[in-house]
C-alpha cells in the first residue's frame, strides 16, 4: 500500500498535536508559581529535554544544516556558538539564579540592582528580544504547512497559534514544560531518522555523526574529501574551507555563546528545578539532548550537499523530480537556463542578480517559472534557498513517504516549542514585572494569573500577525536577539553574581552602553546603509552578526569604570550576593 506523503503528514501532525493538547489538559496551572516556573518541581532530566526543545527552534531544525550545507566550515559558528553558551550557563549563571529563586530575569536585575529603572530596562529588552525571535518561529510554521499540507500559509499559522494558545494559556510553564518534553522526542526522532537513512546509503555507517568521518560506500575515499573534490570541481569553495575572516568567526561565535547564556527564555528554565545542584546537572542534560541534533547537523549538511550535486547537476529540466518542481512552485528554488540547453548547471557563485529570485507570472518553454532577475556572469543556473535543505533532503534522497511526513511534524515541534517558551516569557514580563512589581502592586495572585493568561493570549495574537504578514526584516533582525542579549543581560547578570562591588549605576550605564551601541551598529548596516554592509566598512572587520561581542566588551568596561567611582551597593544587597553564592 502506498499512502501519499501528504496524507501521512496530516496523520503525523494530527497525532503529535493531539498529544500536545492532551498533555496541556493534564497539566493545567492553578497558581502563579506553577504558571511562571512550574512550581519549581521539574525533574532535571525533564527540564533538560524541555530546555533542549525550548532552545532548538525552527532555526536549528530547519535552517542550520542548510547554512552548513552551503557555507561549509564557516557554519561552525552556529554549532559552537549555540552550544558553548551552555557551559557559561552551567558554570556562571544557572546555579546562582536558581538559588535566587524568583520568577524572571528582570526580577533578578531589579532586586540585585535595587532599582525599578534597571528592572524596566530589562523588561523592554526581554520583550524586544522575545518578539524578534518568535516571528522567526512563525515563518517556520508557515513554511512547513504550506509545503507539506498544501494549505495556505495563513491557515497554517492560525492552526499553529491555536495549538500554542491552548497549552500556553492554560498550562503556563507547567503545561509548556511537559509539552516541550514530548516535542523534544518528536523533533529529535524526526531529525535522526532521515539522517540515519542517508548515512547508511552513503557510508554504510548507522551513526550519522560518525558517518561524516567515514568512507563512501564502494569507494576508498573519505566522504568529506569526496565532497571537497566535488565542490572544487564545480567552481565552489571547498566544503571544509572557511570563507569568513578569523576575527569575524571569533566575534560571531562569542556573541552567540554569550547571547545563548543571556536569553531570558533559556535562563528561566533553570528556575523550574527543585535544587541548585539540579540546575547544574540540568544544563548538562540539556546540552546532551541538544548535541544529539547538533552533532548530526553537519552530517546532514554534507550528505545533502552531495545528494543535491549528484541529483541536479546535469539533469534535464523536463525530467526533474517532483520535489524540484514543487519547491520551484513554492518560490524557494529557481532555475535560469543561461545557455538554453535545457539542462541544469549547478556551479559556484550566485546564479541570479539580485540574488533572490523574482518570479514573473508565466512559465518558460520547458515549464520552468519565468524569472525577472538578470543572469550573472558565471555558469551557475540554480538558486536554492538554504532553508529547504532539511525539509527537502528526504525527498532528494528518495526516502519513504513516512520519513517525509515525520520531518514535517518535527519541524512544527521545533517551531512551536520555542514559540511557546518565548510567549510565556513575554507574558510573565508583563503580568509579573510590569504589573505586579511596578504599576499595580496591589493585585491579588488570582488577578495576576488572569493578567498573565491575557498577556499570553495577546502576545500569541501579535506573533500570529507576524507570521501572516511577515515583516520583510525578520531575517535581518535575528542578529539582534543574540547581539542584544550578549551586550545587555549577560554582563549584568555575570557581574551581579561575581562582583560585590557591582552597583546600580554601573549596571544601568553598562546595559545602556551595550544596547545602544549594538542596536545602532546593526541598524546602521542593515537598514540605514545596507550598501556598506561589507568587511571594508565594518569596524575591525566585525559583521553586525558578531557586533554583540564588542557591545558586551564595552558594557564590561563601562561597568568597571562607573562602579569604581560610585558608592558600593547597600549592605542587604551584599548579603543577597553572599547568599546566592552558596547552595544552602
Amino acid at each position, binding site marked *: 500500500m502506498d499512502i501519499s506523503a501528504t496524507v501521512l503528514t496530516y496523520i503525523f501532525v494530527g497525532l503529535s498535536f493531539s498529544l500536545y493538547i492532551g498533555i496541556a489538559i493534564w497539566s493545567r496551572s492553578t497558581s502563579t508559581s506553577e504558571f511562571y516556573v512550574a512550581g519549581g518541581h521539574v525533574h532535571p532530566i525533564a527540564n533538560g529535554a524541555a530546555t533542549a526543545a525550548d532552545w532548538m527552534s525552527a532555526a536549528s531544525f530547519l535552517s542550520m544544516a542548510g547554512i552548513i550545507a552551503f557555507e561549509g*566550515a564557516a*557554519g*561552525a559558528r552556529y*554549532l*559552537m556558538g549555540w*552550544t*558553548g553558551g*551552555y*557551559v557559561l550557563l*552551567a*558554570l*556562571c549563571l544557572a*546555579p546562582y539564579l536558581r538559588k535566587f529563586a524568583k520568577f524572571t530575569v528582570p526580577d533578578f536585575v531589579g532586586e540585585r540592582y535595587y532599582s525599578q529603572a534597571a528592572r524596566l530596562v530589562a523588561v523592554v529588552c526581554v520583550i524586544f528580544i522575545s518578539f524578534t525571535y518568535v516571528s522567526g518561529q512563525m515563518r517556520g510554521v508557515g513554511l512547513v504547512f504550506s509545503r507539506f499540507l498544501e494549505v495556505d500559509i495563513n491557515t497554517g499559522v492560525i492552526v499553529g497559534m491555536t495549538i500554542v494558545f491552548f497549552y500556553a494559556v492554560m498550562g503556563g510553564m507547567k503545561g509548556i514544560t511537559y509539552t516541550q518534553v514530548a516535542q523534544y522526542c518528536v523533533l529529535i526522532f524526526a531529525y535522526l531518522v532521515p539522517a540515519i537513512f542517508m548515512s547508511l546509503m552513503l557510508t554504510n555507517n548507522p551513526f550519522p*555523526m*560518525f558517518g*561524516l*568521518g*567515514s*568512507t563512501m560506500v564502494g569507494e576508498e575515499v*573519505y*566522504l*568529506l*574529501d569526496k565532497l571537497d573534490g566535488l565542490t572544487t570541481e564545480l567552481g565552489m569553495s571547498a566544503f*571544509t574551507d*572557511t570563507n569568513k575572516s*578569523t576575527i569575524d*568567526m*571569533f566575534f560571531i*561565535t*562569542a556573541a552567540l*555563546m554569550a547571547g545563548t547564556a543571556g536569553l531570558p527564555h533559556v535562563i528561566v528554565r533553570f528556575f523550574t528545578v527543585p*535544587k*541548585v*545542584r539540579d540546575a*547544574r*546537572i540540568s*544544563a*548538562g542534560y540539556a*546540552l*546532551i539532548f541538544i*548535541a544529539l541534533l*547538533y*552533532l548530526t547537523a*553537519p552530517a546532514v549538511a554534507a550528505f545533502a550537499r552531495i545528494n543535491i550535486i549528484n541529483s541536479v547537476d546535469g539533469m534535464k529540466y523536463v525530467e526533474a523530480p517532483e520535489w524540484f518542481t514543487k519547491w520551484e512552485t513554492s518560490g524557494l528554488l529557481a532555475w535560469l537556463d543561461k545557455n538554453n540547453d535545457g539542462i541544469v548547471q549547478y556551479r559556484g557563485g550566485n546564479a541570479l542578480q539580485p540574488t533572490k529570485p523574482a518570479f514573473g507570472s508565466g512559465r518558460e518553454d520547458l515549464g520552468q517559472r519565468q524569472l525577472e532577475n538578470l543572469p550573472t556572469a558565471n555558469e551557475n543556473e540554480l538558486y536554492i534557498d538554504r532553508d529547504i535543505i532539511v525539509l527537502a533532503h528526504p525527498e532528494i534522497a528518495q526516502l519513504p513517504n513516512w520519513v517525509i511526513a515525520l520531518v514535517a511534524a518535527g519541524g512544527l515541534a521545533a517551531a512551536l516549542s520555542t514559540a511557546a517558551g518565548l510567549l510565556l516569557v513575554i507574558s510573565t514580563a508583563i503580568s509579573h514585572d510590569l504589573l505586579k512589581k511596578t504599576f499595580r502592586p496591589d493585585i491579588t495572585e488570582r488577578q495576576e494569573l488572569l493578567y498573565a493568561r491575557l498577556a499570553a493570549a495577546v502576545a500569541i495574537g501579535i506573533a500570529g500577525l507576524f507570521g501572516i504578514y511577515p515583516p520583510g526584516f525578520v531575517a535581518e533582525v535575528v542578529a539582534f536577539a543574540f547581539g542584544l542579549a550578549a551586550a545587555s543581560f549577560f554582563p549584568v547578570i555575570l557581574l551581579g553574581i561575581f562582583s560585590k562591588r557591582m552597583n546600580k549605576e554601573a549596571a544601568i550605564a553598562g546595559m545602556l552602553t551595550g544596547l545602544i551601541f549594538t542596536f545602532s551598529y546593526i541598524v546602521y548596516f542593515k537598514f540605514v546603509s545596507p550598501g556598506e554592509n561589507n568587511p571594508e566598512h565594518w569596524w575591525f572587520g566585525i559583521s553586525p552578526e558578531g557586533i554583540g561581542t564588542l557591545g558586551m566588551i564595552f558594557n564590561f568596561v563601562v561597568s568597571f569604570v562607573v562602579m569604581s567611582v560610585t558608592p558600593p551597593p547597600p549592605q542587604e544587597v551584599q548579603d543577597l550576593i*553572599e547568599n546566592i*553564592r*552558596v*547552595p*544552602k
Partner: protein
Amino acid sequence: MSNKSSEKSTENSRQYWQANLRLMYVLLAIWFIVSFVCGILIVDYLDQFRFFGFKLGFWFSHQGSILFFILLIFIYTWRMNLLDKRYGVDEGE
C-alpha cells in the same frame, strides 16, 4: 562566642567560594581552548592533521568542541557536588 562562630562560617564561605572560582577558571580555560583556539584561531594549522576522515581543525569546530562542552559541565557538576559536601553547604535530600 557567637561572634567567633560567625567569623568561622564567613571564613568557610570564603574558602568555598575561592575553591569554586578556581574550578571555574580551569574549566573555562579548557572551554576557550577547545572552541575559540582549536576551532577558530588555529583551525587552519590543525587542518593539516587527520582525525579519522576529518581534518582535525574541522572536527574540533564541528563536533569536538561540543563533546568537550558536555564533558566540562559534567565535571563541574561532579566537582561542585563534592565541594558542597566538603564545606557543608550541600542542600541535602
